[in-house]
């Protein structure tokens, strides 16, 4: 194999925005069979990196039709050009090297991650945890931090997921009324006792455990419904298997704990979609220990990720400076700045109000617009950008609009809306590249 230097991929014809062919074989499966590397979907995973072999990657494929987006891009070249993967290999090695340091340089890591994180070896799990601030930069502190956070989550679960019967029993045991039992052995009128703290199941008191429990059941039902509807096409999340059920239970627990800890925002439909990729990644971590604690890790990362976007979920803030409407208008302004013609055509001529399409793009962080694997790539960029995920998200949305400009300019209200609400499959790397370019230039 010719060892090319890192190709000037900025100028390569690979990155022209021709839509990829829709169906790819499961690249990881062909991976092992292809010792002959003429199959263009040769994985970058074999090379001299001390990581668990593709069995880790293959573990993903029975669950999910993940098209490895990286090899997908290489296939776009059409003729099966042999080594776009060399660059992936080097990138993977660089990232691994970076996260193996004693003290990690976040700036460097961000720079590397923003180009996309390779799929193998659970690198993405660790990098995301670092980017979201869950793991500290000092590698030595990792085990203590993890232990602390994981036990904290366990305590949350114990406290918040108990039903009122158990709670009242705990309260009683502390006041030790156990000796009642022995009296009743022989029979006789059962003795009545005072209720503790005025707690009874029909209590209407605000502080009553029972009352709160019944009020929470509404939210819990909503969470239940949404969890069952998450990614119905993926075996990981949906179906009758034990595995899917445990995963659904984990999602449920995380969302319930979050709702109880955040009475201001509780649960809003859509949070399950943001949670799903995080949990998927962490559960599929090849390191056994991490996968076992995936629920706890996901909880904290979810909180961190959502903290930047919380205001989008709060209905009262809709019209405020931080609310969703203002973010959507920021997107609009960004489009106007970079492509005035398109902006005018969309907003003025065809009157496609950005709320119709951008609402879902922004609140759900683009998880619903692309397939699962692509949204992971996009999240790599979102999480790693030092500008913050919101700014990056807006740039990516703007790029999405610009890339389809020809069709949008030619369309009317109905066709434009249809196009934007069902965004066509596209070359993700090119899209991210365009989004990146929007950063540097003030105007096209």
């Amino acid at each position, binding site marked *: 194999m010719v060892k090319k230097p890192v190709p000037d991929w900025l100028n390569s014809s690979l990155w022209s925005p021709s839509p990829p062919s829709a169906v790819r074989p499961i690249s990881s499966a062909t991976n092992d069979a292809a010792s002959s590397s003429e199959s263009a979907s040769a994985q970058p995973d074999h090379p001299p990196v001390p990581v668990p072999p593709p069995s880790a990657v293959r573990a993903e494929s029975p669950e999910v039709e993940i098209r490895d987006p990286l090899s997908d891009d290489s296939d776009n070249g059409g003729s099966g050009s042999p080594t776009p993967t060399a660059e992936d290999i080097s990138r993977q090695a660089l990232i691994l090297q970076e996260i193996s340091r004693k003290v990690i340089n976040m700036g460097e890591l961000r720079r590397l991650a923003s180009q996309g994180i390779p799929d193998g070896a659970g690198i993405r799990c660790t990098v995301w945890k670092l980017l979201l601030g869950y793991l500290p930069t000092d590698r030595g502190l990792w085990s203590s931090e993890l232990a602390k956070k994981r036990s904290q989550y366990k305590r949350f679960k114990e406290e918040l997921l108990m039903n009122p019967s158990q709670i009242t*029993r705990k309260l009683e045991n502390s006041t030790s009324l156990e000796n009642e039992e022995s009296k009743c052995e022989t*029979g006789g009128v059962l003795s*009545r006792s005072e*209720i503790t703290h005025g707690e009874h*199941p*029909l209590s*209407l008191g605000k502080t009553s455990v029972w009352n709160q429990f019944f009020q929470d059941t509404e939210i819990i039902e909503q969470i239940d419904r949404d969890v069952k509807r998450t990614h119905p096409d993926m075996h990981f999340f949906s179906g009758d298997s034990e595995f899917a059920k445990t995963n659904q239970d984990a999602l449920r627990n995380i969302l319930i704990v979050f709702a109880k800890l955040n009475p201001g925002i509780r649960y809003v439909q859509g949070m399950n979609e943001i949670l799903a990729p995080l949990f998927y990644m962490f559960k599929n971590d090849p390191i056994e220990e991490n996968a076992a604690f995936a629920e706890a890790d996901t909880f904290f990362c979810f909180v961190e990720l959502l903290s930047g976007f919380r205001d989008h979920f709060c209905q009262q803030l809709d019209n405020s400076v931080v609310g969703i409407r203002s973010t959507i208008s920021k997107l609009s302004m960004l489009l106007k700045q970079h492509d005035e013609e398109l902006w005018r055509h969309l907003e003025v001529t065809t009157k496609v109000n950005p709320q119709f399409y951008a609402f879902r793009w922004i609140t759900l962080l683009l998880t619903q617009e692309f397939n699962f694997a692509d949204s992971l790539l996009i999240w790599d960029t979102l999480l790693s950008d030092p500008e913050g995920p919101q700014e990056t998200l807006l740039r990516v949305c703007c790029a999405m609009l610009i890339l389809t400009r020809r069709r949008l300019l030619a369309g009317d209200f109905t066709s434009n809306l249809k196009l934007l609400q069902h965004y066509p499959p596209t070359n993700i790397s090119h899209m991210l590249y365009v989004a990146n370019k929007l950063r540097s230039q003030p105007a096209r």
Partner: protein
Amino acid sequence: MVLVLAIGDLHIPHRAPDLPPKFKSMLVPGKIQHIICTGNLCIKEVHDYLKSLCPSLHITRGEYDEDARYPEIKTLTIGQFKLGLCHGHQVVPWGDLDSLAMLQRQLDVDILVSGHTHQFKAYKHEGGVVINPGSATGAYSSITYDVNPSFVLMDIDGLRVVVYVYELIDGEVKVDKIDFKKTATPATHSTH
């Protein structure tokens, strides 16, 4: 954690117009999983009201019930417990604990719920527990006029039952509780 409401002897409209408002405000739909009713409602409207609180409604016939289709005796299983239901006017002497115990052994249930006396009682004997939820409206009984409105809510959780007794005394709702555990069913009933 299963909540079971035991209620009965309302005698609406003959002896009482309605449940006390303080009771009514507490009984809202969505909280209770089962209702067992000793009888003497007496009319369909009360049946519908109870049904609106909870779809799982079990009633036995009291002597003044207008619907003749209710059974005399009913048994059901909730969680680990077997419950028996009977209005109580059939058991003579009325309210006599030994006679009720006999009925309980006949039905082979852990908890027997019966009414008719309009007096709350909770009694334990070797065969199990007898609970009388009293009259929820405070209607006068065949025996006495001095009746406090009362009903019972049972929280069945595994092998343990917490019985919450709701009584209206001097216009105020008073709640007490009774705790008892069922011993895990040994094979006492030897193979016949």
